[in-house]
């Protein structure tokens, strides 16, 4: 753990001077909240490609996604033909999955939330519980670093006592323009379990955005899932029917 040396302090205060909202930069909780707001905005519409390198090879899927607030999200796969039409809907505490081959909507039992999403390294709860990091953890600023001309804040987040969280801690790297650069998940003995890294940050939809995200588990070396966001719009007005079960099954 990097100590809060004079040099680090200097860096922090330098960053604080440079930034418009300097107070926020030193408050890791506020920093994370801002990063999540930047990521999802109040609403969004994006097209992304997901590449999964599994034990049996690599495959690519293209998906279109919409979000509204923190608790509404719809992801629909549009290519390749084999996977096109598969969709996942999060609406409040409920998560639904639509499979066009079965022409069935299934409400996921919460016990299935930790299962792999479309055989990727992401789980359903990664999609729906992103906000958990902001609210259910206590955050400490460990130090700072540099990343392509920006200051990076390294934050250690420990679950609050009694919260139903399996992780021992998370280490999150947030850039001063509120881009989440790296998220590491540790078990309760302090061993790294999985890592999500932003490989590329680009200006997208008028904001800095991690356009390439890679998730990998320590358990399965050589396997990873990469999400490359190709286009995105933020603070759009999504029609209200979008996040309904009927729209999940029969898209308008």
């Amino acid at each position, binding site marked *: 753990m990097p100590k809060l040396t004079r040099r680090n302090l200097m860096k922090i205060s330098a960053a604080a001077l440079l930034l418009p909202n300097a107070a926020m930069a030193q408050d890791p909780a506020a920093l994370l909240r801002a990063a999540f707001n930047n990521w999802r905005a109040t609403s969004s519409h994006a097209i992304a490609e997901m590449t999964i390198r599994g034990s049996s090879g690599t495959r690519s899927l293209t998906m279109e996604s919409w979000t509204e607030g923190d608790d509404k999200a719809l992801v629909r796969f549009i290519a390749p033909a084999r996977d096109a039409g598969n969709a996942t809907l999060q609406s409040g*505490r409920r998560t639904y999955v639509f499979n066009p081959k079965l022409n069935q909507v299934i409400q996921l*039992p*919460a*016990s299935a939330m*930790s*299962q792999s999403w479309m055989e990727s390294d992401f789980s359903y709860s990664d999609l729906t519980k992103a906000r958990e990091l902001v609210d259910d953890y206590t955050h400490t600023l460990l130090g700072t670093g540099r990343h392509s001309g920006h200051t990076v804040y390294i934050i250690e987040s420990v679950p609050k006592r*009694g*919260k*139903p*969280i*399996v*992780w*021992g801690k998370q280490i999150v790297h947030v850039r001063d323009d509120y881009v989440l650069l790296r998220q590491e*998940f540790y*078990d*309760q*003995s302090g061993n790294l*379990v999985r890592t999500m890294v932003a490989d590329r940050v680009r200006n997208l939809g008028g904001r800095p955005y991690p356009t390439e995200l890679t998730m990998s588990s320590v*358990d399965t070396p050589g396997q990873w899932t990469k999400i490359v966001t190709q286009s995105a719009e933020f603070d759009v007005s999504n029609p209200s029917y979008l996040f309904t079960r009927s729209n999940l099954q029969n898209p308008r």
Partner: protein
Amino acid sequence: MENFRLLAPLAWRNLWRNPRRTVITLFVVSVGLWSVLAMASFITAWAQSSRDATLRLLLAQGQIHAEGYLDNPNIDRLMDRPDATLLAALNAPEVSNWAARLELPAVVQSEYKTLPVSVVGVVPEAEIRISSVPEKLVEGRYLSGPEDDGAVIGLNLAKRLKTALGRRVILMITGEDGWLEERSFDVVGIYDADTAFEDTYVFTGQTAMQNMVGVGDKIAQIAFEVPQDDALSGVVDSLRAAAPTLDIRQWRDLSLMLGAMDASMDASVYVWMSVMMVMISIGVINTQLMAVFERIHEFGLLRALGLKPGHVLALVTLESVLLIGLGVLIGMAMGAATVWGLRDGIDLSAFSQALEAFKSGEVLYLEIKPIDYVIFPLAIWLLGVLVALWPAWRAAKISPVEAMRHAT
């Protein structure tokens, strides 16, 4: 009778004219019977021990549930705490112990894995008396009281979850309102039973679990124990009378597998006995037939001296009656000696890992069931004599003239 007096000493002496052959037949019969008797004792002891071990683990001798819970064990099928009438029946001297439990299907999650389990909310004080799980702890401690919100999990489950004592796991149970309640539990204890059991059951405090799922003080089951298995159906009847709306069953109806095993343990002894019977029959026919062929000249002489074919038949049959009878007596003595020799119990603890699947206790105590010592010897004796009738009949058929000419 006169004939018998004449033939019996003759038959007995004939047996020892070829001691080697006689000893071999005696050996076949006695070892065969011994293996059946020893096996019967062993299987009975094993079945009893494994039954007791399983009942002791969690099942107890009987359980009370709300109607329908066993078909679909979920939160809608819980029952209230026992009312005054049922309480009186449970506290009667015919019931030695009872414990109320809240058991619901759940999902346990660690950093690495999510697995389905069954969570049992227990009252530790009652549980210690009725279940052997608290004694099987290998790490940490058992729950301290119904409010204890720690989790006691199985050794194999801990391994599969890659978690350990003192770490946190998440338990998810569908609550009263239909939502999945999630809570983190500290692993306070790890127990070592058989793997299937370890993978299934997670224990926590009853009140803590009731609060988590919001069911007030409702419970899912009452497990009870009686001092004598014979008295069980009577106790079940009296409990049913005390609580007519509840589903009250004894272990044979709760664990059909265990009930079937208990009912069929004799069958395997009979299978072994039939195998042994065939072996013994072959041995007896073979030696007796050889004996008859070797003694053709002798039988011819006996016939020439005036013995009727019936007398020859009786003589040879009498020989096998004596021979097999003696073998059977030796076999019984060996069987009894084996049980007596192992009266301190057979310690299986060295194989406990391998025997885990059989859920047996670690020390087996053999017993002699008197009925076994009547049925099996009698069956082998009768069958042995029956098959020896064939060589005897061959001997009786011999014509004296040809036999006398037959070179010895």
